[in-house]
């Protein structure tokens, strides 16, 4: 290399090329709401990622402090709006534990049925949006087709399609409508006959496999250190399902498998949810055989006061461990309510996970973590 050329080369090096900063969101088709990702890109490769949240923050926990315990229940619907009943349950459970209220058996069984039906609806939404994130739009419509059936069943019992507000402190507001159990079992059969379609469309699709396998791998130790829960954690090979780990309602008496996969990649996270559909169907089928007759709510005084103390609930929502921590000072209002939203904890891993991947993988990885911004921002 002669002198001139060497100078030129040095000059190019001195130019100091830098990454391109790209703003993904808050309005972007694949951020599942209003998440904002500030990506620093080198070509198509992500060098750094900074998630910005809080675009839906409405101070729910602050609002809870201003209300009597039970008045907060309707607000919990709008946390993880894809699975409202899990939020209702987590909130009611925290109050029940704080105030020492028992729940009748029949109510517990119906709660289990509601949880699982809502879990199916939520996982179907995940399958659909995840397909869309990867460009397979049709999956969304297939999943919504079945989801619509699940919503009809939930509407039959709760009267709402999305924000149910059906679980009360100490039980449920009303019993199941007539023949509701038959409808649920028929839906179970329908869903089982349709999951094969999902597999043909996505799970077994070679393009889908190549897009997801080995992408965004979370090793088990990392998954634990980041505090991930739900299918996101179980896909990394950690067996932690609150339904088994700290059983609530009647889950201790039900026979089901905790779906645990080893790979920890995007595909495993997808597959974990896809396989949980079948486990939910399995649980639903057991519920109605064993449901006892009896009351559906225990007596709770008009003014609900809890003794001073700290209590927390743990519920396995479709996204992971949902936990309400309540602090009481003996007054009718809680002193502090904190919501441990699974999406919030799961999202912490994203920034480190996407580095070194392509832009397209960011979308796939984010989709596979399955967040709901309503509960991230609270």
């Amino acid at each position, binding site marked *: 290399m002669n002198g001139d050329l060497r100078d030129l080369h040095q000059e190019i090096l001195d130019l100091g090329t830098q990454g391109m900063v790209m703003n993904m969101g808050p309005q972007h088709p694949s951020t599942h709401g209003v998440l904002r990702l500030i990506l620093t890109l080198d070509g198509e490769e992500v060098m750094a990622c900074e998630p910005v949240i*809080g675009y839906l923050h409405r101070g729910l926990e602050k609002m809870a402090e201003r209300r009597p315990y039970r008045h907060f229940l309707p607000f919990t619907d709008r946390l993880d709006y894809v699975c409202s009943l899990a939020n209702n349950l987590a909130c009611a459970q925290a109050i029940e534990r704080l105030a020492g209220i028992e729940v009748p058996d029949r109510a517990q069984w119906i709660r289990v049925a509601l949880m699982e039906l809502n879990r199916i609806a939520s996982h179907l939404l995940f399958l659909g949006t995840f397909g869309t994130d990867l460009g397979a739009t049709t999956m969304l419509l297939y999943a919504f087709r079945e989801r619509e059936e699940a919503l009809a069943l939930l509407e039959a019992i709760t009267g709402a399609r999305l924000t149910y507000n059906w679980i009360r402190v100490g039980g449920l507001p009303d019993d199941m409508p007539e023949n509701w159990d038959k409808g649920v079992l028929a839906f179970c059969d329908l869903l089982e006959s349709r999951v094969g379609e999902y597999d043909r469309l996505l799970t077994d699709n070679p393009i889908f496999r190549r897009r997801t396998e080995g992408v965004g791998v979370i090793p088990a130790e990392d998954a634990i*250190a980041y505090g*991930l829960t739900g299918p996101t954690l179980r896909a990394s090979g950690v067996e932690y399902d609150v339904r088994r780990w700290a059983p609530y309602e009647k889950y201790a008496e039900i026979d089901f498998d905790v779906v645990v996969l080893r790979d920890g990649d995007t595909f495993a996270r997808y597959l974990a949810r896809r396989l949980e559909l079948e486990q939910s169907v399995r649980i639903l089928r057991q519920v109605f055989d064993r449901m006892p007759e009896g009351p559906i709510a225990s007596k709770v005084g008009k003014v609900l006061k809890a003794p001073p103390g700290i209590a927390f609930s743990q519920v396995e929502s479709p996204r992971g461990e949902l936990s309400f921590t309540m602090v009481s000072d003996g007054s009718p209002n809680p002193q502090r309510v904190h919501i*441990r939203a699974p999406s919030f904890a799961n*999202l*912490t*891993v994203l920034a480190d996970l996407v580095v070194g991947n392509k832009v397209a993988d960011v979308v796939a990885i984010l989709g596979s973590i399955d967040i709901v911004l309503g509960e991230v921002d609270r």
Partner: protein
Amino acid sequence: MAQAELKERFEGALGGLAEAVEAEGSLVRVRVALPNLRAALLALKTSPDTACDFPANLTAFDTGQEMTLLYRLASIPNRWQALVSCPLDREDPKAPSVADLWPGFNWFEREVYDMFGVAFEGHPDLRRILLPDDWEGFPFRKDYVSKPSGSPLKGPQPTDLGEQA
């Protein structure tokens, strides 16, 4: 596992770091003073007796007289968990950061800072997380005074939106 045994295990792991240890089912309630907080959390994480390596939750609450940090750590294989409470100095809330031990607590600490103004010493990136960056005050402190929200749009904006072409 018997509660007494569980309590012993935790007391053994913590040594003299804890002020009080109570077992209740599979939950162990631990109270720690601020100077021992980090050491106690580290002991809970690393000691084979407790093995609480799963960062389940971190929050705080303010009673108006006292502000308390609340950590929840779980041991997944052993099926027990610890609820660690640590009172803070309400006038100048500070706490050591454990974001290096558990990256999962990074955002939880930011949230506590955002809502209570607790300064986590050693946190890599302590900024507001949920509220807008220019928010004033820490809303979850009991002495916080709510104010009506002003115009959501800052800077020059068309005054008559209806006629905007």
